[in-house]
């Protein structure tokens, strides 16, 4: 079937891609510009040099290395435990028979409707009274419970062939063994997808860490980034954009390398079966 070259389609695609890319390119270019290049009219598109002055300034003003380590630790540990909790809960909800199971499932599901911002004052009070301010557990634990992950895993487990697990049960495999030796290996694509979405969410978390951390050596990247905004002086866009590049680049790299799995994770919420 011969079709006309879809020129309109390509133009639309180009516009869409440009709208997404242009702001990011603008950020990248600005991160190399000096003050006078940024504040010049008409605007100057290209920096006069690609010397990383703004980057060294940003790194000098705030400890980005520590931010990076903190973001990495909270993201990996937070997302990791979250996945394990989700798997265990989903398994229990699907494969273990106890009365009132529906109530526990309801507890998981209704939690999806409670925005974390609404409960932030009481949670802060609790975390502070535990002495968890400026600690990794203070950043991680309140957001650790898995509601959406549990839900997705449950949907997936319900679709697993019951015969395999029945056979395993007849062979004398206990629940824990069935979970790790059968259910988990049969669910790796779902687990990977949910894990990557969790990683992205944890990495970008802003309001909660902003509240519980006040020491720079414990700050995560999004919080540290706002330290570059100088309130009393004058906006230094070059340094600020350099910081923004440092915050966005790692997650963009992860996204481009693992985009298939991340896309699968994002769509898993909507498409099941």
């Amino acid at each position, binding site marked *: 079937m011969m079709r006309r070259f879809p020129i309109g389609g390509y133009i639309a695609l180009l516009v869409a891609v440009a709208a997404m890319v242009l702001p990011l390119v603008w950020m990248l270019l600005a991160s190399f510009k000096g003050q*006078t290049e940024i504040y010049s009219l008409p605007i100057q598109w290209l920096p006069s040099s690609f010397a990383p002055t703004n980057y060294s300034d940003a790194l000098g003003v705030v400890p980005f290395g520590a931010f990076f380590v903190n973001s990495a630790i909270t993201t990996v540990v937070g997302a990791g435990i979250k996945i394990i909790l989700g798997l265990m809960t989903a398994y229990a909800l699907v494969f273990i028979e106890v009365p009132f199971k529906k109530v526990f499932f309801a507890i998981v599901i209704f939690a999806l409707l409670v925005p974390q911002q609404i409960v932030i004052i009481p949670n802060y*009070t*609790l975390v*502070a009274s535990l002495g968890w301010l400026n600690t990794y557990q203070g950043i991680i634990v309140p957001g650790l419970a898995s509601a959406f992950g549990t839900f997705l895993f449950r949907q997936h487990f319900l679709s697993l062939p019951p015969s395999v697990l029945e056979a395993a049960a007849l062979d004398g495999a206990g629940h824990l063994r069935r979970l790790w030796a059968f259910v988990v290996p049969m669910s790796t694509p779902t687990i990977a997808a949910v894990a990557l979405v969790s990683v992205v969410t944890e990495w970008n978390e802003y309001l909660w860490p902003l509240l519980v951390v006040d020491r720079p050596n414990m700050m995560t990247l999004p919080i540290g980034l706002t330290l570059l905004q100088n309130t*009393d002086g004058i*906006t230094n866009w070059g340094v600020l954009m350099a910081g923004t590049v440092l915050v966005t680049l790692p997650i963009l790299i992860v996204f481009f390398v693992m985009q298939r799995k991340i896309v699968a994770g994002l769509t898993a919420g909507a498409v099941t079966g």
Partner: protein
Amino acid sequence: MTPRFDLSNAFPNGVTRRNVLAFGAALSGTALLAACAGPSVGGDVGSAASATPAQDWTNIKPASSITWWTNHPGNSMATEQTIIDGFQAANPGIVVNMVTAGANYDEIAQKFQAASGTDSVPDLVGASDVWWFRYMINEQIIPLDDLAAHLNANTDDFNSTLYGDYEYNGSHWAMPYARSTPLFYYNKSLWSAAGLPDRAPATWDEFDEWAPRLSAVMNGAAPLGIGKGTSWAAWWFCNIMWGKGGAYSSDWTMKLDQPETLEAGEYLRAMINEKKSATVSATDSAADFGAGLSACTVASTGALTGILKSSTFDVGTGFLPAGPKGAFTPTGGTGMAIPAGKTPEQQLAAGMFLKYLTDAEQTATFSAATGYMPVRTSAMEGATMSAIYTQKPQFRTAVDQLKNARSQDWARSFVPSGDKYLTTALEQIMLQNSAASDVFPKASADITTSYEQNVVPYL
């Protein structure tokens, strides 16, 4: 593959009454756990002053380690570390842990308020001009007069306005640290192109005369670029308002309906919306000025270094113009306060560090590094400052202008959200051409309500 919505197959029978009841039962179970944390509730909250018994400092030994919360005003982290090193060398028994508790004064305040009653309350905390009063009524900080006397901190040497800003009920609740005033910045090349003398206008009337001549050399653009937003608009506007004899309030009495205050608002409205001698900057009026978009601006002394760095023309500075009733400038920035609820040993150690931090030598060092005001009279003419004046003559203006400094009106600085309500009114005047007589009464009513709800019960 069939796309399906999650929750629709979560409950195949739909959300039934039974599900909801089960959920409700679970929820009320957790209600039993909910009652424990948070504040204690009573009908009367008592008075801040009476709840603070006098401390006898004579037999107290300073603690060996204290924590200091700062936002490093003016990128001063390195300078602050130098000051700490000096203090520790002079007092080998005391270690000072510096903590970046936020990017700005509001963030420090948020953290401090939230940390109250927990282990993580610092021993010394940044207390900005709009926050210290709230710390005080919440009984989160201690009065410093006895401690200062015990330590011979020589508070008489503080600039009296800067120290007086922290006075309430006869006690001082903080010491001045990183303090700033707004300055009038002007672009010398545009000034000379317009044939104006090389100085800031002495009065707003003079500015009105000069403005058309500046516009003429700027393709008709408005010469004065001014800023908006909370913590800013209602702060620098004090200059115009006080100059015309107006005020937001006098102690706890609202003065927004006074003819002089309304006249000042009207002046601001006309300047932007009729005379076109001023325009409101989008994000950063100091940056717009540095880029040459405006011929002059009102900006903080703290912005001086940034402006000099970003501009390609000669920058002139002068006092804020005077009004018919005189020349006045507000002051801002942050002081340092000592939290309540710490042991006397910690408070004493914090007091010793605070005394060192604000002594003549350190305030000059800090001022030289950041562009904030030296807070002691003796420091203003010392060797360190003299060297700075030679290097950055513009800085001298800021120090000299302190003679025009006046303490803030309580309606803005003491009433929670007072600054927000005033900013809203001023933004309506500036951006929407509203008459002051239409918007000030609402600000006045809102501030009064906030005062009655958030201040009166605690006094």
